[in-house]
């Protein structure tokens, strides 16, 4: 199993990579921070990965995703699964006041990710097999005052993935967007983690790993978010707008 992970230093990505390592996969870890990638690579090797390689690059700054992807695949000698896990939470208040922050959140989480999705999907379609899992968020299911710029970017990704899945229907390749609820990772380190709905990166990773093999095009992590979001999406605006969520 040859796996490319874009944004390998994210908590969910690392937990997912450990599952692949246990299966004895060949891994290519892509991210910005060389030292952190190296630390993960050593760990994954000890946990059973057959091989681990590291590529240091700023995924959000890519100008030619197709060409860069071709380079990754060549290094790995082919590819079976790809995970797109990078993203930033950003600062909603700042995004409201400063267009540059809003643009940054949208560019990293949507524009750049969309370019990678299209490049990878094209490759999978031409090969006729393989799967791509994209990390979305329940925040993309309905805009909330706390994080609607981030949420809008994730909503865009989900729509894109659904469209590609439609195009893939009845063909070999698979594409899935996994939508985690609040997860205990470095991204949420500054948030108050009250309430029973917080999941661990390991819980979400199990869903991500399974999504690459079956199901789709949308998976919630943990599963109960499907039902919570179903209710939240169908709440009439007058009621929704009075809720403190």
């Amino acid at each position, binding site marked *: 199993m040859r796996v490319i992970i874009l944004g390998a230093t994210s908590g969910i990505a690392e937990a997912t990579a450990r599952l692949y390592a246990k299966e004895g996969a060949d891994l290519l870890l892509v991210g910005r921070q060389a030292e952190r990638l190296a630390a993960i690579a050593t760990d994954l090797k000890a946990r059973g990965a057959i091989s681990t390689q590291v590529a240091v690059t700023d995924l959000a700054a890519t100008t030619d995703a197709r060409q860069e992807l071709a380079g990754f695949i060549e290094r790995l000698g082919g590819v079976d699964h790809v995970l797109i896990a990078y993203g930033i939470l950003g600062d909603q208040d700042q995004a409201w006041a400063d267009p540059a922050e809003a643009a940054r959140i949208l560019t990293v989480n949507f524009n750049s990710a969309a370019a990678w999705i299209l490049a990878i999907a094209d490759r999978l379609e031409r090969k006729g097999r393989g799967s791509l899992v994209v990390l979305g968020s329940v925040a993309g299911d309905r805009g909330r005052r706390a994080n609607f710029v981030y949420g809008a970017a994730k909503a865009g990704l989900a729509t894109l993935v659904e469209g590609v899945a439609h195009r893939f229907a009845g063909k070999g390749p698979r594409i899935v967007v996994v939508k985690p609820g609040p997860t*205990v990772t470095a991204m949420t380190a*500054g948030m108050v*983690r009250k309430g029973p709905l917080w999941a661990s990166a390991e819980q979400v990773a199990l869903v991500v790993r399974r999504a690459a093999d079956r199901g789709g095009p949308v998976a919630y992590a943990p599963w109960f978010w499907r039902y919570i979001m179903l209710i939240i999406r169908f709440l009439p605006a007058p009621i929704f707008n009075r809720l403190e969520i």
Partner: protein
Amino acid sequence: MSRFQETDSILSWGRVVRASHMAARPAWRDELPGLLTEATSDGRSVLALGLGRSYGETGLNPGGAVIDMTGLDRIIAFDPESRILRAEAGLSLGAILEVIVPHGLFLPVTPGTRFVTLGGAVANDVHGKNHHAHGTLGRWVRGLGLLRSDGTRHLLGPDDTTGLFAATIGGLGLTGLIEWVEIELIQIASAMIDAETVPFEGLDGFFELASESSEAFDYTVSWIDCLASGPSLGRGLFSRGRHSPAGPLRAAMGAPGPSMPIDLPGFVLNAASIRAFNALYLWNGRRRSGTSRMPYTPFFYPLDAIGNWNRMYGRRGMYQYQSVVPLAVAADATRAMLQAIAEAGQGSFLAVLKTFGDKASPGLMSFPQPGTTLALDFPNRGDETLRLLARLDSIVAEAGGRLYPAKDGRIPPALFRSGYPDWERFAAHVDPHVSSLFWRRMGA
């Protein structure tokens, strides 16, 4: 934005002590210096946390900050040939076993639960059922990285001459943050354990079995029915085992099984139910006594089968009480303790008895010393329980013994000082910005 968040979800494992903390959970070692600076800049003290399996107050720092180390759980280097593993301090012993067992390797020392971190295990210099053969985990530490609040990083090993290594092994997290640990592993031929259970009638039976078994068995421990009195005082089950010479090298995987979802109401645990449990346990053990081959998890970690079993004791929680007394007086002191418990009618679910060998730890504050150790769990019934524990304290003090800070939540400062004569030498190495409820209560 502060990376510390106020939380009231940090409890001791015994759940007697509850407190609010400022907590941060870093994912990378390079974040630690900044977190230390942030925590201590407004005069707060800081403390590292592992998986919170300490029963008492050594892992609490109310009013101060804590750094949850469990996000730092990467293997840094692993060489099955040389049997050396270096890993970040937040990696759990269970996760280590998953990696090493398929290579025919095992932890040289393991406590009774695998849900402890490497850092926490070193900070308490944990012991296992093989203390007579292997001593404490600290004896197997080949090196560690310590980060002090002044930002200095120390690479410490058994050859350290400053005393900081000796203070950090068993140092209750007070000498700084342990960033990583390097340990030596032992070789095994299979993941199975050949175990044997032998019932005994009284304390003398225990001591006979203990001395007879220590040579031939890697692991020994026994369970005592601490409600039995009179002639059957000290009756119990002796369990001993060794790694099987042949069998699969399969690691136990994943998470614990079912979990205790709620606190049981206090009345569920009364003298009668504990008496019934103990009788049943003894009966069951006798029935199944003899030899069996089992995977390593149920042998070493029977309690891990139920997540959050500590909630069984209800909202008021429980005290665990673990003492060690020198061998010369062990029989008398243990008998006196069991008598005191039987008289008080306050049974314990778990009464575990074991002899420690004479393998010395490099740690200044390491708990084990040659002698007999008795560990007991008591549901917290307030004053009644504290009075019994005070009675046990006086027996331990008179016997020249000591208590295990990882287990207790109320060691009297005087008993701590008499039990750990090196404590002043240790105090000189304590990081000035690190503290815990335990350390403050000891008046240090």
